[in-house]
């Protein structure tokens, strides 16, 4: 897939850039998860983890700072979580790209609509009761 030639901004052009970004994001995320997964399997010993009863995952795999600390020590599960965070960030980056694209198109209505969607996404990530 080639980047579109320069010229006027159109919906089609936004979509092509978005497509490239989505593919890059998902490939990067999958690569990180695969790396963490291989490390996990290399260290895996003992019986399968018990997922039959739900206990929320520890803060170590929830808070961004803690996950990054884990990545620093090459903790396999922290690396997997980092890959999953990249994956979750990909659609959010897509919405940001659309905001920029609509701005270039001078489409105020859709710049506003995309910004509402971004606000909902950021709210869901950062605000919890």
């Amino acid at each position, binding site marked *: 897939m080639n980047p579109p030639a320069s010229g006027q901004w159109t919906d089609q052009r936004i979509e092509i850039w978005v497509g490239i970004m989505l593919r890059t994001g998902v490939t990067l995320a999958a690569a990180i998860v695969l790396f963490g997964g291989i490390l996990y399997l290399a260290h895996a010993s003992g019986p399968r983890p018990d997922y039959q009863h739900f206990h929320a995952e520890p803060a170590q795999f929830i808070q961004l700072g803690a996950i990054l600390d884990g990545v620093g020590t090459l903790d396999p599960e922290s690396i997997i979580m980092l890959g999953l965070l990249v994956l979750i960030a990909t659609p959010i980056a897509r919405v940001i790209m659309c905001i920029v694209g609509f701005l270039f198109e001078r489409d105020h209505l859709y710049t506003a609509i995309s910004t509402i*969607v971004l606000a909902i996404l950021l709210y869901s990530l950062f605000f919890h009761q």
Partner: protein
Amino acid sequence: MTALDFSLILLATSILAGLLGSLSGLGGGVVIVPVLTVIFHVDIHYAIGASLVSVIATSSGAAAAYVREGFSNIRIGMFLEIATTLGALLGAWLTTRVPTHSIGFIFGIVLLYSAYASIKKRQDEHTQQQPDPLALRLKLQGNFPSGPTTHQDYVAQRVPAGFGLMTLAGTLSGLLGIGSGAVKVVAMDQAMRLPFKVSTTTSNFMIGVTAAASAGLYLHSGYIAPALAFPVMLGVLLGSLIGSRILVRAQVRTLRLIFALVIVALGIEMIINSVRGVL
């Protein structure tokens, strides 16, 4: 079973689930959640957490391929994402309030409906009504290539009905950790009378953003277990990529029928387990 064996069996099963989800058009999430809960006895919260991330992966992976064809409509998708993301927030919040067996029961019903929707013969019933004035104001229109040099124009109808159904699709996505592509397509194809190909490609485009809206609460509530999510996400992604390659070449009518039966069986199993309280 050792952790290694468990991960490898999960990986193989997830590849199959991704393949099944892709060939049946239902999406990987609808298949992997019942497989994890019914066969592997995984708690439904962990199952929907692993499913949700695989849904984001397959949607983003597939959308990259669709945009080149020029069928998906980013405006219609973006406008309706207001509805699906708000719905997803509600659905994800409900998972922390609703008892496990209720989630399982609703999931079973959605499975049965999905199986029906996947085999139902589809006909375009696009009556030439007056376009919704709201649709014109929101620019919910477009055109798609209908031949080598020709384009066909379309305008959305019944926007409020479509928006309402999209809120439901988002709620189900957040509550069940699925993409709920089937409901999204109904909202665009049936309610808003958009061309089928526009509906399916735009729906796929919307799934990732919808799922990302639930991901924050899932993460915060500890539903995403890394050691479980890793084989599931990679497997479903790989399976659905293989599936989309096969789809281009194969006649899938018979396959769909067989898959629909598998989905019905899983749906009934989930409903029974929920009622018996063993899910």
